[in-house]
């Protein structure tokens, strides 16, 4: 399932690289403790290792920036926080625009007809949904696990995010991930992927 950030691909590689270096470090430590043969590395080895680390830093920056820049391509120009020259389509690129109000403690979703829904964001399968998020009071978080996106909603300004709705109809979790008061643990909402208003003639959905 394609997700908003589309990071699964490069992220999988990053996870693998990270895991490998974790294991490598442990193995080297184990070897130093257990191996019979002793060995004193030269400075060259350390420099080589640093060289590999720098290459990884470059690679990590490259993939992360590329992914995030692609994600931000169609967002409002002010929103772009990762460098890159790109001109997106703006709101036209999205199938649906929703204003999200994060408050103590819940989410209000305002659709294009200015109707508000409490704790349920209804979308169609596969839609690209632009979310314009504002906070009523304090810093809130916005995390939609199925869309693999997390953002912090800072009361100073509105925030634009977008997600691609899953293809499978059903309900998916939206949760706040910044402590915002006693109701934080309950500040959850549903992302509802509704297959549509087909007539079902008395059948239950």
């Amino acid at each position, binding site marked *: 399932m394609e997700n908003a*950030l589309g*990071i699964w691909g*490069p992220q999988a590689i*990053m*996870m693998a*690289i*990270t895991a490998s*270096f*974790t294991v490598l*470090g*442990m193995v*080297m*430590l184990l070897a*130093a403790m257990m191996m019979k043969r*002793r060995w*004193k*590395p030269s*400075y060259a080895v*350390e420099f080589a*290792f640093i060289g590999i*680390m*720098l290459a*990884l*830093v470059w690679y*990590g*920056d490259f993939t*992360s*920036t590329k*992914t*995030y820049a692609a994600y931000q391509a169609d967002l409002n120009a*002010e*929103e*772009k*926080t*990762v*460098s890159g020259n790109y001109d997106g389509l703006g709101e036209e690129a999205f199938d649906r625009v929703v204003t999200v109000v994060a408050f103590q403690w819940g989410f209000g979703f305002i659709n294009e007809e200015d109707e508000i829904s409490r704790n349920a964001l209804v979308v169609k399968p596969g839609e690209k949904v632009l979310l314009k998020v504002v906070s009523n009071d*304090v*810093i809130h978080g916005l*995390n939609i*696990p199925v869309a*693999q*996106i*997390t*953002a*912090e909603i*800072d*009361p*100073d*300004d509105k*925030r634009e995010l977008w997600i691609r709705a899953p293809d499978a109809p059903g309900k998916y979790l939206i*949760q706040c*991930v*910044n*402590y*915002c*008061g*006693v109701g*934080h*643990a309950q500040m*959850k909402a549903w992302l509802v992927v509704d297959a549509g208003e087909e007539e079902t003639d008395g059948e239950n959905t």
Partner: protein
Amino acid sequence: MATMEMDDPKMGLKAHWEPKNLLSGLTLNQILFSNDYRHIALKGIFTAFIMLALGGTFAIIFRTELALPDVQFLGARVYMTLMTLHGMVMVFGFLIPLVVSISYYMLPKILGTDRLLWAGAAQASYWILIVAAVLLVIGRPDFTWTAYAPMSLRTGNPNIWMGHVAIILVAVSEFLAGAVLFRNALASKGGLKNTPLMAWAAGTIGLLFMISVFPLGFVGFGLLSDWAQWTQVAYFDPSRGGSVQFFLYVFWTYGHPAVYLPFVPAIAIIYTIMPRFLGRPMWSYWSGVVAFVLLAIGAMPIGPHHFQPVYTVSGDYQRFVQILTMLVFIPSVLHVFNWISSLFMGPIPDSARRAIPFKFMVFSIAFIVYGGATAFLNAQIAPDSDFIHNSYWIPAHFHAMFFGFSGQMAFAGVYFLFPYFTGRMYNQTMGNWHFWLWQIGLFIKITGMGIAGYLYFPRWVYDYLDIPGWADAQMAITIGGYMVGLGFLFFLVNLFWSAKYGKEVTDDPWPVIHDLKAAPAAAPAE
């Protein structure tokens, strides 16, 4: 490359270390106010243990609540109070004071000065922290240890201002501690090239302490001012004209260097005791120096990675932070490479393998690899904006670093010092129980948190949904936590019992014996 000998001044083992009972026969006045560096250090160390017991008790309580979904016995407000104090007590009360106190103990010995300069400042630093602790207990803030505005202005706790004042006091206390470390590092004789690595650490981190606490003090003041409404236009409260982003930048300008405050002194402990146990110098001196300097410099500008998913300054700045954050790995890699190479380059004596401090040290290195390598992902915008930010992945990372590495290294330091301040050896069996319970417990709990984070488990919740994997992860974390608690109890029993009944030590408690079977009589006491 230049080789170091054991009597090289850079090795820093100069002053006489003699096992002696420093704990008995003290008057109350001496216990509380003696300016002898060892008394100051021990006071700090034991107070830190009380803080660990406190923060740990809080953890056991909320861990019990979280082990199962649904609310069992903790309400939202009590939970957050426990969680806030857990964080503050552990970081400000346990970890930083413990490593600083161990530095106060070891630096004078290593530099051969046998006294702590500016001991009065060290005293003041201690007592100001005690006042802050008392304020926290009376005020009982429930706004998380990071006290984000504007939430931390409005939690409805009428004594919330005590939390704000405590933050200011912590800043003052840490400033003084940093000044003491810096001043004593400068006391190294023989110039920069002959300065032991622990002094390099103390000097760089002392400077970092002093610079970085100003934003913290300002944050405490700003929160207090906004809460009390001293100004027409608030500093941080957006509903009164303030700026939340201003808060975030200022707080994390302290907050990021803050994580190095326990990290660097713990690294310094490794550079000090590893050569002792191995009976040979470190693989490289200059690599350590460069790493300490680079870390102190690199620590300052990367605060924003803590709030990366907030709309911040646009353009290249966000990417700059990402790159710099990843680059700050390099000093840590230099240190780890140095340690592993030092271990690799010669045989490891049996006496070292057996010694509890050495064991803790080796596993601390394992945890720094675990927490540090996985943090490569934290630095990048894309994964951070996916599952990392504010999920349990973050506590996994900082428990690995703060506890798995710094905390354990501090205990390695305490075990190392034990014969020197009690004149006796600790009990090996209890030490092993402590050791294994911690390695297994910490590993289980950190891995549990990491998995929970990968599954998008949110932070700061007292109850959670019935999502596959969440309950199992929480149960694992709780079990790991209980094991860590039990391990600490073993330590406490060991501390009290061995101080009184442990085998007396009069000679070097840490002789380097390569083959214990060949010379068992020379082995350190059981």
